[in-house]
Structures are given as structure tokens and as C-alpha cells.
């Protein structure tokens, strides 16, 4: 179903880190002609000023116009630099070298958290970025993973690694339970249902005895000894996860995801089993989130329901949107920014989330494609 090997033209596993980019020559021409399928058929409520009825450029509706801005121009030097296939490797190199610059326990802890956050964002990018499904309860899968491994490891004295199969099973089940009934519905229903699901998981963890109630699970064993070793392990796992997600995005399934995102009806008409494809995206996102949860538990050695609030889900979403939905390198950068920024701006702690909210609106209004937009042969939307 989701073998990365399905893309035969792949140059090698490393380059996958650079994400769903295509060589720079591709961007421009297709964009200026609005293809019949890429209008906004789902927007039954579109206002009279909506862009599809007007010639491009003279439109008052700023949304669609700005969406094209980044792609109609030929790539600049900067963006060509960003499109470089070595960007991913360079990022990995930075991550490997970072402890040589600053290896205080605090810095290591922050960097490890950031790496875990990158993995979460990569997983959410599959759901939101590739498939266009808004998941507002992504922390639920994070929680399912963290709790499954934490509870199993502490109750049965298992090494953490042995809980991974159980985590996989649990997250897949969670993904199916929540995805199966809701993915048939309108996309905006999904958003609220996932929001509710996130709350259900958190409240359940808060109420059950086996999960330790409000105080949570503590004494989770470490995966490896020492913070430095764990940092490198995390970086390795996250690198593989990010590369895997990016590869998945370029596979046959990934193309189907993007097709569904662009125009679900057209995809259906072309023979894409949209429901199954969406469920696959959802489950993939769940697995990524669950595995990130295992790392999270191992990192902090204690988890509690307070770590899995809506705030967490919203922050991950923020990272994906800021970086550029569907663009794996952008999402990685976005995740790093979102997770490191609060550490730098400690003085602004009170205003931080307010600024995040405003930023979310501003990004959507002015630069919906994100800081580092996805470029591919397919039209962007």
C-alpha cells in the first residue's frame, strides 16, 4: 500500500529528505491557466467576487490570487537554493552537529523536543498537507502512542522498544475508529469531530485508573542511556520518519492524496477510491503521531493528560501551515521554528499563543502556501 519503493525514479533515500519538490523547471506554465478541475467546486457558498469568474489579476478576492503568487514567477535564486535536493541532508547535518555547538542538558532537551515535534508535524502534513483533511485532534494519536507504550512498559516491565508493535496496532485502530465514520462526510465535519476526538482521548486518559488519572504515567524507561545518545536516536528516527513521509507523498498513493485534495469529485470520477485513500492518509498520520508519542514518553519519562491538549494539536497545525502545507522541508522548518521560538521568547510567554493565533490568520491571508511552499508538477491550490 505505501511502499516507498513504488517510485522507481527515486535517486536514493537521502534525497527524499528534501521533500515533495520537483526540479525547478516545472513550476510556471500550468499555473496561469486555471484548469477546469482546480476551481473551487466545493465552495457552494462562494461570493460573487470569487476568483473563478474573473480574469486572473483583476480579482478582488485576494485569497486565490496570492495563492498563485509564489508559483507564477520563475523561481528566484533563493527558492532554487531551497529546492536543492541536498537541503534535507544539510538539515540532517545541522541536527547532527548541533550538540557540538551547545550540549548543555537544557539545550539537548530542547533540541530533542524539537525533533519530536518535527516528527509530529511530518505526520500531520500527510493528513492536512497532502490529503487536505483538517485534523484538529492530532494530539490524540500522540497521546495514544505515548500512553500505550508508557502503560505497557511500566505495568509489564517491558523495554520500550517491545511496546512499539502494540503502539502501531493501537494507533491504527484509533485511526480507523475515528476516520471510518467521519471521512465519508464533508471535510469541515471532520475538523470538528477530530477536535472532539482529541478531547475524548484526553478526558479518558484523565479518568481511567490504568492511565494514572490526572497525574499520568511516570517512570517510563529510557530507550538508550544518556541524553546525547537519545538525542541522536531521536534525530535518526525523525529523519527516517520525515524521509518516509516525503517519499509517501511522492508515491502513487501520494499522488492520489493530492488529487483528492485538489478535487475530490474529479478524483472519484477518475477511479480513485477516495474514501480508502483518505483513510490511508489518516492512518499514516496516526502512525507517525503514535511513534512520536513513544519518543515523547521516552524523552520525558513521564506523561500526563496535560501534554495532550488542543493547544498541542493547534501548535502542530500551526507548524504545518506556517511551513507550507504539503511541503515537507517547509513543514520541518515550521516545526523547528514553532518549537524553538517559545524558548527564545520566554519573556513574551503570555503573548505567545495570541501571536500564534494572529500569525495563523495572517499566513492564511497573505501567504497561504507557507514559508516554503510545495512545488510540484501538479497545480497548487
Amino acid at each position, binding site marked *: 500500500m505505501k511502499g516507498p519503493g513504488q517510485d522507481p525514479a527515486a535517486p536514493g533515500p537521502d534525497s527524499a529528505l528534501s521533500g515533495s519538490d520537483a526540479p525547478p523547471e516545472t513550476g510556471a506554465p500550468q499555473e496561469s491557466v486555471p484548469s477546469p478541475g482546480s476551481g*473551487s*467546486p*466545493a*465552495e*457552494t*457558498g*462562494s*461570493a*460573487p*467576487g*470569487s*476568483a*473563478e469568474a474573473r480574469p486572473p489579476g483583476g480579482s478582488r*478576492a*485576494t*485569497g*486565490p490570487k496570492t*495563492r498563485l503568487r509564489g508559483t507564477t514567477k520563475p523561481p528566484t535564486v533563493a527558492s532554487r537554493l531551497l529546492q536543492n535536493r541536498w537541503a534535507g541532508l544539510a538539515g540532517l547535518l545541522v541536527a547532527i552537529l548541533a550538540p557540538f555547538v551547545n550540549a548543555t542538558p537544557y539545550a539537548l532537551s530542547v533540541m530533542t523536543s524539537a525533533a519530536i515535534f518535527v516528527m509530529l508535524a511530518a505526520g500531520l502534513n500527510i493528513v*492536512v498537507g497532502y490529503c*487536505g483533511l*483538517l485534523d*484538529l485532534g492530532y494530539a490524540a494519536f500522540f497521546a495514544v502512542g505515548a500512553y500505550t507504550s508508557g502503560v505497557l512498559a511500566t505495568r509489564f516491565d517491558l523495554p520500550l522498544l517491545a511496546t512499539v508493535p502494540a503502539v502501531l496496532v493501537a494507533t491504527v485502530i484509533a485511526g480507523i475508529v475515528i476516520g471510518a*465514520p*467521519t471521512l465519508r*462526510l*464533508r*471535510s*469541515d*465535519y471532520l*475538523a*470538528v*469531530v477530530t477536535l*472532539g*476526538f482529541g*478531547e*475524548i482521548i484526553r*478526558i*479518558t486518559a*484523565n*479518568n481511567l485508573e490504568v492511565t494514572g488519572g490526572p497525574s499520568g504515567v511516570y517512570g517510563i524507561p529510557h530507550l538508550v542511556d544518556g541524553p546525547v545518545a537519545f538525542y541522536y536516536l531521536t534525530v535518526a528516527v525523525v529523519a527516517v520518519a520525515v524521509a518516509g513521509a516525503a517519499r509517501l507523498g511522492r508515491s502513487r498513493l501520494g499522488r492520489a492524496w493530492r488529487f483528492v485534495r485538489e478535487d475530490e*469529485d474529479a478524483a472519484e470520477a477518475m477511479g480513485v477510491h477516495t474514501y480508502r485513500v483518505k483513510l490511508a492518509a489518516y492512518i499514516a498520520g496516526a502512525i507517525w503521531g503514535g511513534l512520536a508519542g513513544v519518543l515523547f514518553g521516552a524523552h520525558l519519562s513521564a506523561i500526563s493528560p496535560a501534554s495532550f491538549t*488542543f493547544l498541542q494539536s*493547534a501548535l502542530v*497545525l500551526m507548524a504545518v*501551515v506556517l511551513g507550507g*502545507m504539503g511541503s515537507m522541508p517547509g513543514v520541518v522548518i515550521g516545526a523547528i521554528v514553532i518549537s524553538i521560538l517559545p524558548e527564545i521568547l520566554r519573556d513574551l510567554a*503570555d*503573548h*505567545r*499563543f*495570541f501571536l*500564534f*493565533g*494572529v*500569525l*495563523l*490568520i495572517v499566513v*492564511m*491571508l497573505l501567504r497561504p502556501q507557507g514559508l516554503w511552499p510545495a512545488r510540484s508538477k501538479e497545480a497548487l*491550490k
Partner: protein
Amino acid sequence: MTQLVWNGLFVGSFYALVALGYSMVYGIIKLLNFAHGDLYMLGAFTGFAILGAAGGVSSSAALPVLLAVLLATMVITGLAGVVLERVAYRPLRGAPRLSLLITAVGASFALEYGMRVVAGADPRVYPVRLGGTTLEVFGARLTVQQLTLVAVAVVLMAGLNLLVTRTREGRAMRAIALDPRTSALMGIDVNAVISRTFFLGSALAGAAGVMAGAYYGKIDFLMGFLIGLKAFTAAVIGGIGNIPGTMLGGLLLGLLESFGTFWLGGEWRDVFAFGVLILFLTVRPTGLLGERVTERV
């Protein structure tokens, strides 16, 4: 038993008030306004600020003063809703739905934590507390204040229903819900009507916020989050976009919660409510009174 029913109806009337705004906005521009619950929160804080500025309120005059505050708050939250629509939603009206949803989440975030910056993270105690005379009706214990609040809610809802079904303005709203472009051709100022819809919906949410503040006595900046979710659940149960359906859904959700709490215990109340939401979406996604909505191509 009757006590449970009464509690359910009481909470349900709050849900219905908040859900109406959700439902109206959704019915007209197909936008899930995530910030709607936060307008409820804003209403509670606005009422708090007005009461604080007015100084202490003697308990004898509490109810008339509260009604005046209610009206003032409705105007202010209504205007806040209009500003929100103008700044965050209108520029994106032709954009993909995902962008709008994300903007709505951002707006919700900004309102919540903006209020935290302004009012602080700690819960505030409402200066007016309604408590008092107890009546015994069919074995259920209810207070005069509860009755008043329910009556206010019913009046507001009935007024809204009249507005939407009987007036020129309401006809314009329904026309836009059916087809915005054709409505514009028929001479309806679509943007103005949408603004007024936001005003109405937000004003109702603000009213509910003041009432909740006065009744429960404690408000905080995250109080809108959960009720926003609940209101959506109520709207889905009744049929989103359908005004009588939404009212019914709110009352029904209140009843379900009241009985669910009784059977399962208070800590599972929210889980139960969201479970009902998921069940409804699986079995009858159009809600009890909703019509089947097909996404037009």
C-alpha cells in the same frame, strides 16, 4: 427524573443559543466559525467588565441590571463578530475551504489568548450571582433565576426565528444560503447581509456568555472552547443550517448530557456528548431536521 429533565433543558437552552449562531453562519456561508465559542467567552468578559465599571449591584435590582448589561453585551459581541468576519473571513471567501477553517482556528486562538493577555489566566468571579428562591414543580427543584434565563433564551430564539422566517432581512439570508451569486443579481447586498448574520449570531453567543457568567459565577478565557464544541454537536444533532432543528438539537443535547451524567458519572459527560456527535454523524449526518445537502460541483 423531572429534575434531570429540567437540568437538561436548562443547560440545553444555553447550548441552543450558542448553536444558533454556529448554525446560521454555517447555513449562509458554509463556514464553521471555530471562534464562535470564543465570542461566547468574549460576551461573558464584556458583561463582567460592564458590571465592574458600573460598580456594585444591589441584589434587589440584580435582574433588571443584568438584562441591561445583557443588551449592551449583545451589541458589543455582535460588533466583534462583524469585525472578525470583515478581517479574517471575508478576504478568503473564494478560497479553498481548508484555508477558511484554518483561519477560523487562528481566530479562535487569537481571541482566547488575547483575552488571556487582557484579563489574565485566572478565573474571574462574576460580580452578580444569581441564586435564590427555589420552586418545586413536579418534584423538580428549580430557581426563579433559572426560569428567567430560560425565558430570556426562549425569547431570543423565538425572535430570531421570526426574523429569519418573516422579515425581508431573513428572506435575504435564506436566499444567500441557497445561492449567493443569484442573490447578488437580485439586488441583495450579500456582504452586508453576511455581516448582519455574523452580528446576530455573535450577539446570541454573547448573551449566552453573560447568562452563563451570571449563573455559574465564574468565567475564564478558555470557557468558550468546550461550549463551542458542544454547540456544534447540538447543531449537528438538530441539522446544521436549520434554525428550529438547531434549537431542538441544543435541548436534546442538554437532556442527553443530563441523563448521561446520571448514568455514567460527571467525569464522562463530555466524552458522552462527543460520542453522541460521532454516532449521529455516522447514522444520520444531516441531523434530525436537516435536509440532505449535496456538495454542488
